[in-house]
């Protein structure tokens, strides 16, 4: 992965190793925020924004704070604080500068702190030893993959509302079966990269 080209990284993050459907990161918002395409898309946009920012900031923190001081064991504590602070910061700034975007993303932002995809990307960037450019590209691509999955999932769930589902399968079980089928579909991309 370290020597992979940018295009390979993008395709791999969006399709082959889709964060939700094959790595199981960010499952909570994937299941919780996917009842409507509109909310799913809003969540996706917020995630793209936060994950990319978090990827960049944690990269700098790792390179210029943790590594020089040999404190890599503090990685988890530091990353989670950066993400929590970042989410708060983004919320305040958006409210002031782009109130329209804020009202669109507003309710989703606080939820993102506990979205494990954000911390997951930051840790993966470090594991893959990415430089700054690859970190940005990888983080953004992962978030786009998340958005793709959640919007696809939400559009199927919307159609499902009108269907007659056995009582025991109503709610989560049928949603998980759809997720399973989507995941099967994404398995088809295995081996592409």
């Amino acid at each position, binding site marked *: 992965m370290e020597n992979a080209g940018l295009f390979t990284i993008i395709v791999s993050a969006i399709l082959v190793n889709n964060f939700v*459907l*094959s*790595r*199981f*990161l*960010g*499952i*909570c918002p994937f*299941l919780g925020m996917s009842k409507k395409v509109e909310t799913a898309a809003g969540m996706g946009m917020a995630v793209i924004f936060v994950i990319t920012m978090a990827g960049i900031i944690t990269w700098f923190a790792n390179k210029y704070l943790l590594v020089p001081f040999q404190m890599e*064991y*503090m*990685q*988890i*504590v530091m990353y*989670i*604080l950066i993400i*929590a602070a970042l989410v708060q910061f983004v919320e305040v700034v958006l409210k002031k500068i782009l109130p329209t975007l804020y009202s669109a993303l507003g309710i989703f932002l606080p939820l993102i*702190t*506990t*979205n*494990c995809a*954000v*911390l*997951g990307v930051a*840790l*993966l960037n470090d*594991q893959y030893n990415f430089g700054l450019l690859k970190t940005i590209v990888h983080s953004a691509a992962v978030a786009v993959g998340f958005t793709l999955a959640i919007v696809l999932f939400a559009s199927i769930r919307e159609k499902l509302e009108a269907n007659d589902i056995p*009582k*025991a*399968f*109503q*709610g*989560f*079980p*049928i*949603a*998980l*079966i759809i*997720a*399973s*089928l989507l*995941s*099967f579909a*994404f*398995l088809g991309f295995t081996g592409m990269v």
Partner: protein
Amino acid sequence: MRLTTLTNGLVKDNPTLVQLVGMCPVLAITTTLQNGIGMGLAVVVVLALSNLLVSLCRSFTPERIRIPIFVIIIATFVTIVGLLIEAFFPALHKSLGLFIPLIVVNCIILARAEAFAFTHGPLDSLLDGIGMGLGFTGALMIISLIREILGTGAVVLGGTTLFQLPIPQTISMILPPGAFLALALILAVINGLRNRKEA
């Protein structure tokens, strides 16, 4: 009274199968029973200790910044547990991989700190943490047992094969789609049982 604090998390308020929180590791690492048990016990330790510490610190924790404080406490214990697993169970560390540091963002732990430990005494909080953690472990064991048996036809624990069944191996059960499918069917069974009880 004390006993119900411990047993609530096991069945009635099972975090995974009833409350449906903290689903990422449930789906991701349940490919083998061994992974399920390892992950479950790691969460028991982190959850019990973080609950205990949150409860001990609650008298002087300012209400407004309690969430960042909870997160730091949890992250510290996750780091400790992660380093211990890496030192003593390197194979487990390798197969759980990214999901050990990600225990930090497992909603169960933050939810118990916020909903229980911050308002209860240390002993109750410790028991609640252990109970919820064991409930999580139990759910992981059920799911991983189903997936491992259907996917490989055998159950391997610590390098020894416990038993081998003469059934066709459905590889997709240990691939990502199988995780969603297994959980869907388990939840459907639980729903069905509950509906029957109510009817």
